[in-house]
C-alpha cells in the first residue's frame, strides 16, 4: 500500500493551475457540517497540488487529528502541519477527525479523480473502479481529458462508459441517446443504477425507449453473474457443511459414537485459532498475516488432544452402547461450553481474516468470489482428500475400520484396539478442530459455535449414509446448493424448513441415506 502511494505522489500529474494548499482550505475541509466540508474538498481538489493530495490521502486514511482549531497530519507517530509540512508536537487532547460515510465517499472520489491522469496504469485502473458509480457532472471535463489521454483500450472503454453515464444527464437529446446506446454494452451493475435513475427523470419518449433497451441488455448480461453467484454460494455453503460433517463422519459414521460434543470440538478449534491469533499479535506482529497457517495445525492438535482425552476417559467405556454415548457426550458438550465461558467469557471473541483472505476476485461485473470462501472450499477439498486417503488407503485407516466393526476380533488379530480407538477419535476430533478453524473465518467464535452446527452435521452424515464418506460429500454439496437455490426463491426461513422437509422425505425413499450399503454386509 505504502509503496503504491509513494509511487502515486511521484508520478502524479499536476494540473497547470494548481496552487498550494492553504490553511483556510484545510479548515474548510476539516471543520463544520458535512455538506460544507464536501464543498470545500471539491473546490480544493480542482486546484490540487501535491500537498493537497497528500492531505486528502491522510484524511482518507484517518491520519488527521485536530486540537482546538489546529490540524495535524499524523504519520509514524509524528505530527506535521498539513500546510507547511513542518513537524509539530501533537497535543495530548488531539482528537480524530470524524469522516461520516458521505465525506469518506467524497474523499475517495476526489483522490480517484486525481489519479485518473496518473502514469501508472494500475492506479488508473483503481481510480476508474472507484469512480465507477459516480456520475457527477462536474467531473466531466476531467474524464474527457483522461479519455483522450488513455492508451490502454480496456481502460479507455471504461472511461467511455463513465463519460456516457455522465452524458446521460446532458440536456442534449442526441447525446443522451448516444450515451444510452453506449451503456447498453456495459456489464457493470452500476450502469444499471444509472439507467434506472435516469429512467425515473427522463421525459423524452425516444430516449426512454433507448434507455429501456439499454437497461434490458445490461440486466441480461448481469443475470449470468447472479446465477453463477448462487451456484457459488451453494458450493461454498456445501464446503462448510462438509468440513463440519467430516469429523463426525469418523467419530459417528465409523466409530458409532453419537458425538453430541462434536460441535464443541469445533469450538475448541476455533478458540485455538483465536489464541494463535493473539500470540501472533503479541509476539509476531510482523507475520500476523500468516497466523492462520500456524493456526491450522494448532487447531487440529488442540481438538485432537481433547478428543483423545475424552476417548480415554469416557468414550472407551461406551463402545457398543451407542445411545449411551449420546448421553455422555451431551454432558461433555455442556461442560466444554461452560469451560470456554469460564476461560474466555460468554461473549464472542474476534478472529480476523488475514489480509490475503479479505476481498475477492472479480469474475464478472457483478460476481466477485470472496477469497475466504475460495480458501475454505480449497481447504475442505484438501481435508477431504487427506481424510479419504488416511481412511481408505493406509493401514491406520484399515485398522480403524476393522476395529470399529468388530473390536474383540480385531484385537485377536493383534491390533491394539484401544490405541486405534484413541487415534480414530482424536482424528475425528482433530478434523472437527480444522472445521472450527475454518468457521472462525466466516462466523462467530463463541461458546455456542458448536450448537449452531451440530444438527446440520448430523443431517449431512446421516443423509449421506452412515459410514459412507462419499455419501457425506454428496449430502453436503447437495444440501448446500439446494439450500441456496431455495433461499433465493423463498427466503432463508422457508428455505431452511424446506430443506429439513426434503431430508425427511428423502430418507423415506432411501432409508439408509444416499449411499446406502446394500446387501447382507449392511445387516452384519
Amino acid at each position: 500500500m505504502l509503496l503504491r502511494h509513494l509511487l502515486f505522489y511521484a508520478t502524479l500529474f499536476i494540473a497547470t493551475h494548481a496552487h498550494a494548499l492553504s490553511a483556510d482550505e484545510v479548515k474548510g475541509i476539516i471543520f463544520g457540517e458535512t455538506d460544507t466540508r464536501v464543498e470545500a474538498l471539491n473546490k480544493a481538489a480542482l486546484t490540487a497540488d501535491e500537498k493537497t493530495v497528500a492531505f486528502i490521502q491522510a484524511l482518507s486514511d484517518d491520519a488527521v487529528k485536530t486540537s482546538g482549531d489546529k490540524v495535524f497530519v499524523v504519520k509514524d507517530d509524528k505530527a506535521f502541519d498539513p500546510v507547511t509540512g513542518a513537524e509539530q508536537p501533537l497535543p495530548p487532547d488531539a482528537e480524530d477527525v470524524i469522516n461520516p460515510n458521505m465525506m469518506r465517499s467524497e474523499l475517495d472520489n476526489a483522490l480517484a479523480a486525481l489519479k485518473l491522469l496518473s502514469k501508472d496504469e494500475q492506479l488508473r485502473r483503481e481510480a476508474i473502479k472507484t469512480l465507477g458509480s459516480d456520475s457527477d457532472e462536474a467531473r466531466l471535463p476531467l474524464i474527457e481529458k483522461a479519455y483522450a489521454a488513455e492508451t490502454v483500450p480496456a481502460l479507455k472503454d471504461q472511461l467511455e462508459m463513465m463519460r456516457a453515464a455522465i452524458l446521460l444527464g446532458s440536456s442534449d437529446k442526441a447525446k443522451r441517446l448516444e450515451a444510452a446506446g453506449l451503456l447498453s454494452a456495459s456489464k457493470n451493475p452500476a450502469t444499471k443504477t444509472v439507467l434506472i435513475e435516469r429512467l425515473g427523470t427522463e421525459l423524452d419518449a425516444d430516449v426512454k425507449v433507448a434507455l429501456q433497451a439499454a437497461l434490458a441488455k445490461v440486466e441480461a448480461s448481469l443475470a449470468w453473474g447472479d446465477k453463477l453467484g448462487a451456484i457459488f454460494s451453494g458450493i461454498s455453503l456445501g464446503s462448510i457443511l462438509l468440513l463440519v460433517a467430516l469429523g463426525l463422519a469418523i467419530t459417528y459414521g465409523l466409530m458409532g459414537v453419537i458425538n453430541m460434543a462434536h460441535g464443541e470440538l469445533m469450538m475448541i478449534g476455533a478458540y485455538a485459532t483465536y489464541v494463535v491469533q493473539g500470540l501472533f499479535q503479541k509476539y509476531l506482529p510482523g507475520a500476523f498475516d500468516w497466523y492462520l497457517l500456524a493456526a491450522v495445525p494448532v487447531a487440529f492438535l488442540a481438538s485432537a488432544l481433547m478428543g483423545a482425552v475424552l476417548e480415554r476417559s469416557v468414550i472407551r467405556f461406551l463402545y457398543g452402547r451407542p445411545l449411551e454415548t449420546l448421553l455422555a457426550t451431551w454432558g461433555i458438550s455442556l461442560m466444554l461450553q461452560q469451560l470456554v465461558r469460564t476461560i474466555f467469557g460468554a461473549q464472542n471473541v474476534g478472529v480476523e481474516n488475514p489480509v490475503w483472505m479479505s476481498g475477492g476476485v472479480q469474475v464478472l461485473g457483478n460476481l466477485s468470489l470472496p477469497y475466504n470462501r475460495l480458501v475454505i472450499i480449497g481447504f475442505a477439498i484438501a481435508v477431504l482428500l487427506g481424510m479419504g486417503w488416511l481412511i481408505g488407503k493406509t493401514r491406520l485407516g484399515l485398522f480403524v475400520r476393522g476395529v470399529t466393526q468388530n473390536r474383540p476380533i480385531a484385537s485377536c488379530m493383534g491390533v491394539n484396539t484401544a490405541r486405534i480407538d484413541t487415534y480414530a477419535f482424536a482424528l475425528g476430533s482433530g478434523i472437527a478442530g480444522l472445521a472450527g478453524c475454518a468457521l472462525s473465518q466466516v462466523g462467530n467464535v463463541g461458546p455456542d459455535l458448536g450448537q449452531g452446527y451440530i444438527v446440520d452435521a448430523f443431517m449431512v452424515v446421516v443423509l449421506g449414509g452412515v459410514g459412507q464418506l462419499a455419501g457425506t460429500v454428496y449430502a453436503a454439496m447437495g444440501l448446500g446448493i439446494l439450500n441456496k437455490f431455495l433461499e433465493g426463491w423463498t427466503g432463508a426461513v422457508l428455505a431452511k424448513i424446506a430443506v429439513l422437509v426434503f431430508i425427511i422425505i428423502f430418507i423415506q425413499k432411501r432409508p439408509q441415506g444416499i449411499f446406502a450399503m446394500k446387501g447382507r454386509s449392511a445387516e452384519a
Partner: protein
Amino acid sequence: AEDTIKVGILHSLSGTMAISETVLKDTVLMAIDEINAKGGVMGKKLEPVVVDPASNWPLFAEKTKQLLGQDKVAVIFGCWTSVSRKSVLPVVEEMNGLLFYPVQYEGEELSKNVFYTGAAPNQQAIPAVDYLMSKAGGGAKRWVLLGTDYVYPRTTNKILRAYLKSKGVADKDIDEKYTPFGHSDYQTIVADVKKFSQGGKTAVVSTINGDSNVPFYKELGNAGLKAKDVPVVAFSVGEEELRGVDTKPLVGHLAAWNYFMSIKNPTNTEFINKWSAYAKAKGIAGHKDKPLTNDPMEATYIGINMWKQAVEKAKSTDTDKVIAAMAGQTFKAPSGILSKMDEKNHHLHKSVFIGEIKADGQFNVVWKTPGPVKAKPWSPYIEGNASKPDEPVKGMSVVKK
C-alpha cells in the same frame, strides 16, 4: 435478613443468550458493590441473588416465582429477549413484583410492574431511518429491512414500513427479509441486497439479533459492500457484538443506540473507568483484558440507580410505593444527559445517537437528537394504538389472594 435488601438478577448465564446477558449480570453486581460501598440503601446493604434462567423462557418465569416467592427480592433486574420478558410478565404482575428491563424492544406493552430502561422503537428505529434519509446520511431511497425472524424485528419493521410509507417510499422500494435464529450463511442475503441496491441508493436496516451478526458482517466485508455504497444501520449491534468481528471492512456502517462507549463526557469516562476496574478486579473473562461498555449496560446501570433513589424517596421497598416514587426520577446518565423516568409511561426519556463503526470496533457519533426523546411504547404507526393511554392500565382483572 432484616439488614439487607435482596435484589434479584435474572440474566441467562448459559445457553444462547449468555453471550449478551452475562455482562448485564456483572453490571448489576458492580452497581450493587458501588451502592453498598456508599452505605447501601436506607442504611441497608443490597444483597444480590443471582440465578441462571439458561436462555430457557419458561425457566425465566419459574425463576421469577422463586425470586419473588422464596427469596422475597425487592426488585429484579433482568431479561433481554422480549419473549423472556413476556414469560416473566404474568408472574411479576400476579406477585406484584418489580422488574427493570434494560434492552431496546418493540414496544406494544406497558406494565405497571415493569420499568423499561431500554429504547422503544421511536427512540431508536425511527431516528435512524430519518438520518439515513437525510442528505448527510446518504439520502437513501430504497430500503432493505433485514431481521431475525421473531417478534422484535417483525414489529420494528412493521413500524418502519408504515413510517417509510408515510414518507412517500413505495412498497417496491422496501425489501423485507428474515433469517432464522442462528442463521450463519448470509451469502444469498448479501447478494440480494447488492442486487436490490442497483435500483437506487439503498440503506439496510438490520434487526439481526445475536449470533447471526458476525457471519452477516463478515459476509458484508467479503462481498465488498461498503458503507458508502450501501450503509447498514443496526439496532442490535453494539460494542460487545463487534468484539467478535473484524471491523476494518465495516468502517462506516452504522448503529443507533442511546449510548455509545465512545461518547465523551465525564460521567461516561467515570462509568467506563469504574467498569474497567471492576472487570479487572473480578477477573471477568474478556472484559478484564478489553473492557467494553454498551447501551444495555448503561440502561441497567441507570435502572438500578434510579431504583435506589426511588426506594430512598419512598422510604420503603414496597412495590407500589417504589413505583410511585419512580415517576420523574432523574439520573445523570453516562450518555451525557440527565436521564429521566417518564412520569407516567415507565420508560426513560432518551437521547438517540447514530454512530458509525470505526476500525477499532468503537463508534463515531455522527448524529444525535437535540435532546432526550420521550418513549412511545404504543407506536402511532400501528393501527389501533392511537387510543391507548400512555400509562399502565390498573386493575387488569388480576385476582389477588
